[in-house]
């Protein structure tokens, strides 16, 4: 059995959970995004970011959780250098359900994964270990991250294998991005620990996993390790193990007997926050359309094939582009262009950040294709240029001449050249007309995709005599 604890930063918020410092701490020099509150200076008090409560509640609602009547905060007390107050302000269902959500579920490929609890808490600072050798090792602390709003999502141990874990995380990550609460592709924005047990054996917690890719590996390793112990009748210990990124194995870090007692107490500096049904309903209404509803709409309203609709809806970047670029008449073409021509150009976070493309580019290009002024191939080339430079479609058309060549005379000359150069292919085409596409391709290549494919085919057939 496998269960997960996922930490997700609310990266889309303006400020930290309890102070006005920036939630986006990534662009700062070390320890420059701090104030008396997030540094826990003597006398400072936390000031709850109400937007964080709203966004976290949206996550709870999206994961079909129950939301409490009021939420409260607790202090989790432990000493660690990345923790400015030596306690973390978090949530706990000590006096009944008071954390942001509980008892939810989401479906992954027909299987329900239950969500035990969702809580809102502050991220600690970051420790940076400098110097490789054990002897010269020093630790640097950067508090820029301290106080960043974090949502912890705890699942029930409902996963049967690492593959389900990967599927779940991918769906969850799409869901969080679609909600507009987080950008899971930012480094460190989404982290997960796993609890693994086999055959009702003790629970082993794996921490320190840096990527979802490694998480799958770590779980796989852990299952194998436990099964191997079990088969040799060696007892499995209830413990916390750390994932060793270099050796790709889990290592015991402490047994549960020595587990820390966090001495939870109520955070008296933050009064209970009453969540009346009006606010909840208002937030629910403000939630962006869910991925599944988008997909459904793309299929039924526009007749977009299910597979294309799936790709389009599950990626917020694509669906946002689509929503802004499409009209009832061009929707299918826009969807097509995004999921085939554009996809490879903007498949990473860096490429997306650098891309100069806007929705208008897409609708204009599609318009040119359907009016027969530009070929699909030319449009694809234009996209490349647009992503790079952001030039308008008309600029590109006039500059590099994407206009379609449909002039029979002009095409005829080019086709004559190709026919002369490719006698073997011509012979083949005569024997097997299917292979004529090779020659069409050659013409396209020669014209940089500008040749009108239908006219080209007609002339070719005529010239070869088939």
């Amino acid at each position, binding site marked *: 059995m496998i269960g997960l604890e996922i930490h997700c930063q609310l990266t889309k918020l303006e400020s930290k959970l309890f102070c006005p410092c920036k939630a986006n701490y990534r662009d700062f020099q070390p320890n420059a995004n701090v104030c*008396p509150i997030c540094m826990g200076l003597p006398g400072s008090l936390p000031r709850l970011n109400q937007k964080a409560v709203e966004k976290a509640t949206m996550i709870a609602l999206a994961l079909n959780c129950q939301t409490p009547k009021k939420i409260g905060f607790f202090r989790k007390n432990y000493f660690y250098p990345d923790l400015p107050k030596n306690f973390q302000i978090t949530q706990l269902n000590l006096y009944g359900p008071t954390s942001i959500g509980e008892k939810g579920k989401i479906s992954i490929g027909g299987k329900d994964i239950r969500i035990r609890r969702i809580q809102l808490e502050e991220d600690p600072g970051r420790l940076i270990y400098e110097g490789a050798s054990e002897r010269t090792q020093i630790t640097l602390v950067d508090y820029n991250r301290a106080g960043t709003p974090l949502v912890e999502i705890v699942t029930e141990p409902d996963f049967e294998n690492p593959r389900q874990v990967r599927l779940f995380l991918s769906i969850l990550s799409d869901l969080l991005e679609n909600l507009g609460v987080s950008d899971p592709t930012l480094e460190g924005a989404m982290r997960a620990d796993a609890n693994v047990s086999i055959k009702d054996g003790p629970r082993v917690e794996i921490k320190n996993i840096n990527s979802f890719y490694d998480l799958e590996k770590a779980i796989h390793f852990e299952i194998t390790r436990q099964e191997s112990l079990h088969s040799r009748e060696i007892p499995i210990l209830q413990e916390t193990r750390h994932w060793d990124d270099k050796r790709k194995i889990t290592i015991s870090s402490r047994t549960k007997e020595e587990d820390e007692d966090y001495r939870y107490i109520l955070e008296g*500096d933050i009064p209970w926050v009453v969540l009346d049904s009006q606010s909840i309903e208002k937030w629910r209404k403000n939630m962006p359309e869910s991925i599944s509803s988008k997909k459904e709409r793309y299929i039924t309203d526009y007749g977009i094939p299910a597979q294309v609709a799936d790709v389009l809806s599950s990626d917020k970047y694509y669906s946002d582009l689509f929503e802004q670029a499409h009209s009832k008449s061009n929707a299918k073409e826009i969807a097509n262009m995004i999921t085939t021509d554009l996809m490879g150009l903007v498949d990473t976070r860096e490429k997306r950040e650098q891309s100069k493309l806007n929705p208008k580019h897409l609708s204009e290009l599609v318009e040119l294709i359907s009016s027969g002024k530009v070929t699909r191939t030319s449009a694809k080339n234009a996209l490349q240029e647009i992503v790079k430079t952001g030039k308008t479609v008309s600029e590109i058309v006039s500059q590099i001449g994407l206009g379609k060549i449909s002039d029979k005379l002009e095409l005829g000359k080019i086709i004559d050249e190709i026919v002369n150069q490719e006698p073997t292919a011509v012979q083949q085409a005569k024997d097997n007309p299917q292979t004529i596409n090779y020659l069409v391709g050659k013409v396209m290549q020669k014209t940089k995709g500008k040749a009108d494919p239908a006219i080209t085919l007609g002339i070719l057939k005529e010239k070869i005599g088939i």
Partner: protein
Amino acid sequence: MSLAVSAIEYIDNVKNGNTTVEDFVAKTLEQISKHDTKLHAYLSINENALDQARQTDKKIKAGEKIGAFYGMPISVKDNICVKGGKTTCASKMLEGFVAPYDATVVSKLKNQDAILIGKTNLDEFAMGATTEYSAFGPSRNPWNTEYVPGGSSGGSAVSVSALECIASLGSDTGGSVRNPASFCSIVGLKPTYGLVSRYGLVSYANSIEQIGPFGRRVEDVALLLNHIAGKDQNDSTTIDNHSQDYLDKIDAGIQGKKIGVISEMSKGDGLDKNVENAFWRAASAFESLGASVDQVSLDLVQHTVATYYVLTTAEAGSNLSRYDNLRYGYSLDLEGYEFKSYISKARRNFGPEVIRRMILGGFVPSAGFAGKYLLKALKVKSKLKKEIVDAFKKFDFLISPTVPILPFKFGEKTEDPLAMYLADINTITANLTGIPAISVPFEIHDGLPIGIQIHANMLQEKLLLQAAYALQGTTKLPGVPL
């Protein structure tokens, strides 16, 4: 002009040109240099005080807009942050800590042209009732320097009592304003929880403590409260008081009011006979003012000391854990330590009472014991609150001696922490229930002050100050024997 003026008199005198701010501040500084070596009310003095006084005089002369305090010298307990100066909490742990920001109350005072004359002594991190636990040496009671001034805001009370300033701000977690006010024969108020912002007050037990004003007169305390109370976005527990004017109609009297004498606080073995007698004279004084006086029993008062020490130590354990000397504190070479051993090394600079309470604070909320201690204490707290709510259905005020005993000599109680903790029994209830309470000087017995405590219902400070003012009018007390 005498240094013994009330705040109201001071303001009138400056307004009328009878004195300059510079003259008064200079005299105050003289008084400090003359007496404070012995009394040790201050841990640090504002070196720019005279400059600030001159600036204020200039503003007054030029007819510029001037704040309500007209350059009045006010001292602040050294667990309240004042930007740019040291805030030590009388602890070696924070010996080198310079606050980079002003507490909300401090910026409010500054905005009203108060001159923050200095930072006052306290029991380390406000844990104590005598100032004997200050890491920088105790303050002395100006009424008799062999005696403790009370605490933890002892330095504040001494500074006001010994004419080393006109008014002061302290903090009250279990009586830390009212106790030294009583021992030093001045007025001290613990406001309703949430009435005054705690932003910038170094937390000890954050769920029950409040910043409170000291003055030699009830009306001075009302004036201070006027300017420090109210909603603050930096403290989410604060309450909007709609800028209530506590000075207005302070002389309304208490004719027809119903006063309850809290039985559990006004009799029994722990109560000094002289204090008891003085208290009943105060009760008669209230009757002579036209109020009715009856007994009221609050059963749970007997459990308040235990409850208080469980709750406060649990919160203190958490609040003080940030002092690990990594980000600020005192000078310590941390090279070569593994983190856990570094932490225990760095935290050795806490004093004995803080260590005692931190150990308790680690224990009472710990797994397996929380149910027996912390959660039980929280239950008592909420039941006590119910008793108080019921009592205020019948009474306008609840009264008791502020402290069941007379001021005592140095060292008398430090050997026996439990006896010291019992001195808090009359003051703790107001903190556990959030209601306001004030200590008013009533008598001097054999040269030692006795104060009377009045409680009012939540946010009834206006009524409370009227009652305190009325009682003050029945007394005629000698000046401090300096």
